[in-house]
């Protein structure tokens, strides 16, 4: 029923920080290296913060035009995790 596929792996992410735009557009993860592939994101669906104790985690729901990726940035440990993928449109 829930089409999300669990991944939970650390990934390399290239992020662009824009000087203008709405609060949903300032930080934009542009590319991600996952396995042997480089995925280029075309849309940021939503960014929202969530807390795990003192740690602030920023959740980025990204799309490459066909799949959706839930990325999490741990603002304390400075690591990116790919949590889930929804395949296909």
């Amino acid at each position, binding site marked *: 029923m829930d089409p999300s596929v669990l991944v939970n792996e650390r990934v390399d992410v290239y992020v662009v920080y824009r000087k203008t735009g*709405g609060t949903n557009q300032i930080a934009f993860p542009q590319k991600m290296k996952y396995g042997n592939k480089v995925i280029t994101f075309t*849309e940021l669906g939503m960014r929202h913060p969530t807390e795990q*104790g003192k740690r602030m985690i920023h959740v980025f729901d990204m799309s490459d035009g066909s799949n959706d990726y839930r990325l999490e940035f741990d603002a304390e440990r400075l690591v990116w995790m790919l949590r889930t993928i929804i395949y296909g449109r």
Partner: protein
Amino acid sequence: MAADFGFNKENPQIMWIDLNSAFAMAEQQARPSLRGKPLGVTNRISRECCVIAASYEAKSLGIKTGCRRSDAVALYPKFILLETDPPKYHNVYKKLMRIMKDYSINIEMKSIDEGIIDFHNTEKMHQGRSLKEIGHEIKQRVKEDIGSYTTINVGIGANRFLAKTAAGLNKPDGLDVIDTTNIIDVYKKLELQDLTGIADGFGSRLRAQRIDTPIKFLEATEQTLNKQIFKSVNGSYWHKRLRGYEVDNRETNLGMVGRQWVIGNPNADDSYLRSCLHFLSETTGIKLRSRSVRARGVCVWLGYQDGTGWKERKMYKTSVHSNQDIWLRASRLFEQRPKGAITTMGMYLYKLSSSNHSQLSLFDDQEKAENLTTAMDEINELYGSFTIHSVDTLEGKKHVKQKIPFGGTEYFNLLLKTA
């Protein structure tokens, strides 16, 4: 024609904002591959769970709020059901509130997906711009700050009732004004029970007096409404409400706070059930203290697999505030339960009073317990919920997750307070 009914002729100053299918749309906003698909969200996916919010695509197939998972799948086998993601909705709620606050200091969230902006005394700030123009601007800001897929309905009226009615006229993504020029036409197009606040109970009472349309409701005299239909001052309220006069801006008193839980395994043993109830007691305690109130009444209720229910409540002379006291009283009530397989459990605290006016205790112990509770609340606020909790709730904490409640805004306001 309009003047015959004594409508409020004031320029409409109330704007009602309604996020369309809020939770479902937040999921579609976040995950583009889900857009255009029938989906719903539920608090916890289980065999008999129900949809707490459905996307417009699901609604068009007949899958609505409250629909069971099995019924939804029968209607549409590829139905997507997701578990709620509270931080995501909290973010949407916070951003919507922030946008609304830019337009007036008088805003009020009526539920987790709708709120009111009162534009009285903001004329200078808005420099003669019409509310319709401002409504379009708010729609655009929602797209920029929350996301391009997110839409809202905007309703403008002379009072809360008419503004909410206007917001419901053209869903999704509508913007409508109800004023003296179109109010009769709007009422003519609506059914009696389309009116907010008129459900089966009041609907039956009105129909019993041959009032079966909004227009007939409008034509009824205040005396008829008071003496024959509502048999209370509610009749006068409705007489004013239908004419655009404000009667709904009163603050309601908080009557109770509580939590409930659907148990996955009805044959769970006693220690598991006690741990879950203890966990519910602690989270109810957090809610109680976040509202700065104390409670004298404690109620525990259970639903059994055979469809029967059980409830036990008790009013105490002294009020409760700390987790320890709440659990102590709740557990005593729980011990009185009849035997049987339990499917749902809940508890609530009632007879609330402000905790700022509590009488000082003569006994040290109570003060110590309250200080301990305050210290625990502060630690949990700083390091995250349930960093410190009773060891007895360990099992319950594993299973009972924080879920999105229906209706009120308390949960999100609690998050905002701690954010």
